[in-house]
């Protein structure tokens, strides 16, 4: 699998990271309102990676993972996914519902809707941050959730992107409450044209 030819330099990655920080700031407020609990979200790391490497971030291709996926429409098309390793997902459920399912089979509509809602909030905050910064109009389609092997989830997202040649921006995310934290990976897969337009608008476009 080839990685996007236009590799991102430190400046562009820091723009993405800044964007994620702004977006997550909004999302934190929204989640705290939803749950009536104080939360904190941070972005320890943002990097550009090949799509095939994402399961390795989670801990392995067969690792049980909760994936929330949405496609993005508007001026910059693309795909957004939020991936949580199973034990992080359990922590998240405990933070919000007070308890967590022990196995994937125990995940019912309630647990799934928590993930759908988190996906909605975080993704729309992220997209709003992009819109505010660039004036591009973006919106996400309703989210879908899967509890599966990391590779199986990722593969299905790659297929939606309809190409294995896209590169992805992986934004490591920590969601913390008083009891501790959960790590997830926010994955943004913009179309190549979209990414190009985005940086162009920010004045970080490539010189010819």
């Amino acid at each position, binding site marked *: 699998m080839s990685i996007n030819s236009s590799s991102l330099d430190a400046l562009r990655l820091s723009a993405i990271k800044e964007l994620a920080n702004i977006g997550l700031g909004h999302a934190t407020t929204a989640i705290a309102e939803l749950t009536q609990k104080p939360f904190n979200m941070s972005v320890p790391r943002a990097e550009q990676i090949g799509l095939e490497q994402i399961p390795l971030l989670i801990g392995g291709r*067969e690792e049980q993972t909760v994936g929330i996926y949405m496609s993005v429409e508007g001026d910059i098309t693309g795909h957004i996914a939020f991936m949580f390793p199973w034990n992080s997902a359990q922590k998240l459920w405990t933070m919000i519902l007070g308890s967590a399912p022990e196995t994937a089979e125990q995940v019912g509509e309630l647990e799934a809707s928590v993930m759908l809602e988190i996906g909605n909030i975080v993704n729309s905050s992220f997209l709003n941050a992009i819109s505010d910064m660039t004036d591009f109009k973006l919106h996400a389609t309703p989210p879908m959730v899967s509890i*599966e092997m990391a590779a*199986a989830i990722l593969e299905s997202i790659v297929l939606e992107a309809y190409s294995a040649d896209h590169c992805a921006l992986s934004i490591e995310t920590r969601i913390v409450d008083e009891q501790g934290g959960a790590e997830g990976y926010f994955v943004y897969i913009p179309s190549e044209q979209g990414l190009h337009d985005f940086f162009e608008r920010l004045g970080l476009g490539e010189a010819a």
Partner: protein
Amino acid sequence: MTPTQLLVGMADIQVVKGPGCFTCLGLGSCIGFCALDPVANVAGMVHVMLPEHFKDKPNDMPGKFADTGIAALVQALEKLGASRSKLVCAMAGGAQVFKFGANVANKLDIGARNALAVDEQVKKLGLKVIARDVGGHAGRTMMLDAATGEVKVRTVSQEEKLLCRLRA
């Protein structure tokens, strides 16, 4: 001696003469398709991702698409001495892993389309598929041990199970 371990990644085609263990890890809507000629002792696996190649783009990865991948696997096996009429095949994958959400019903049906496209190729090439584990919501890992002909499948919630034997 441990036999050769062959990891068949997205769009990969792997073939071997003699012993070898093939694995497609975490198949979602993709399909793992394996074939073995027990007489020539030649086996192979392909990990197809999409039903059809893009007509307007050069296809440098035939294994990526069902309409080119199955034929390319057969060709690679024939190069190692297999004959098409002796090939015994099995397939797994083609799931819809997104189970929850408002529009799961009308999105991401690529798994089902992949399975149909592979079936079409199987018919066209006159291949014999003795077992298929496709559809549903579960991601699958598929393994073939060329020495025994055993094809095994596992999911996150199910123990490894024997799908079939490609050797009598």
